[in-house]
């Protein structure tokens, strides 16, 4: 079972925040098919939010086919968002940790690291996309 938290300062709609948290939990494998989501009443009470907001979030997840509501029982996960990539994540993470240490040793501040990762990712993804197009053109 997961527990929802709300960012009170966020401009993001409350029900969207709930949806994002379920999806995040699905991506990292914290929730898997068959797991139950917290009951609407419990979420409404613990966060002091309108139960209709929770219902709206659960309904949206149901429309996307991620969960199913079983009347009188609760809401359950139907499928996961964690792709086959989940298995590789631990190894990639280890490499990344080693790299971050190297970057710090080379004198990069945390902001520099983030900036480098972001620009590199943008460039790499762009290159990947254009390569894909060339392949298709051929």
């Amino acid at each position: 079972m997961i527990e929802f938290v709300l960012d009170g300062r966020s401009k993001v709609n409350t029900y969207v925040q709930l949806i994002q948290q379920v999806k995040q939990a699905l991506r990292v494998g914290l929730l898997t098919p068959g797991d139950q989501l917290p009951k609407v009443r419990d979420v409404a009470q613990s966060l002091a939010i309108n139960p209709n907001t929770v219902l709206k979030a659960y309904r949206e997840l149901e429309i996307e086919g991620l969960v199913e509501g079983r009347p009188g029982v609760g809401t359950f996960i139907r499928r996961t968002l964690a792709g086959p990539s989940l298995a590789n994540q631990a190894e990639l993470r280890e490499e990344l940790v080693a790299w971050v240490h190297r970057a710090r040793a080379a004198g990069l501040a945390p902001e520099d690291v983030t900036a480098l990762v972001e620009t590199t990712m943008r460039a790499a993804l762009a290159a990947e996309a254009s390569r894909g197009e060339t392949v298709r053109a051929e």
Partner: protein
Amino acid sequence: MEIALEAEQLGKRYGKSWALRDCSLRLPAGRIAALVGPNGAGKSTLLHLAVGLLKPDAGTIRVFGQSPYDNPAVLPEIGFVAQDTPLYRDFTAAELVHLGGRMNRRWDAALARDRLGQLGIPPRLPVGKLSGGQRAQVALALALAKRPRLLLLDEPVASLDPLARREFLQSLMGSVAESETTVLLSSHLLADLERTCDHLIVLNAAQVRLTGAVDDLVAAHRQLVGPRHDGRPVGGVAAVVRASHTDRQSTLLVRVDGPVNDPAWTVHDVGLEDVVLAYLADDAQQNRHSEWEVPA
């Protein structure tokens, strides 16, 4: 869609002055509605009319289709917690639960005891000796024990400290989720309302300024920032709710009826709080200008 509360041209007069006038609104069943407005706007009057404690001087008010003043048969459907949670202070919480059972045809004493037990309210202490937060919880538990279909709360959290306020809203939201009760609560605390309410009624100077589903109201308003506005209509803008100007810039809170594509204006989304404040501030400003006999 079932309508829990409906008012048409509703009016109430104290002496010569109208406390509420031309008030028309519909609250669909299952909603949690916020009633907001400055002191003296008519909030308590509206709630007292809805529970049949006052007789309308004009128009009608109906709860599930019945007039509460003329038809006491509808009263068991309504739970009401008046301002400052008035309780018989010498009675204990346990005695009040027992008393409620004698005075109401439908009464779920087990529900009230459960709820008060979970909250750790001492059953044998006169409620006058409880904290404000505990007293508010007792009043809520008693109102819910009626199993009302419409629950009216007049400033339920106004006098509570932040922790008691949160605990009160937690129990309210939890019990509403279970019972599907329609709720109408008046409050000044806009930040709480944004999370808890999905319907809104804004009262100001005895009149309804704005009412509807929160999502619809928020979606129908925008803030525009641009060069000083000369009053010319802007495409997509149905009405300007509030405007402030510097010598070269204008900031408008507007109701829209289409996309605002005019490149002169930067368009921002707004939150519930922005919308409510705009409708309240609008009047306050107008009044003050005329009182001081200066141009707006």
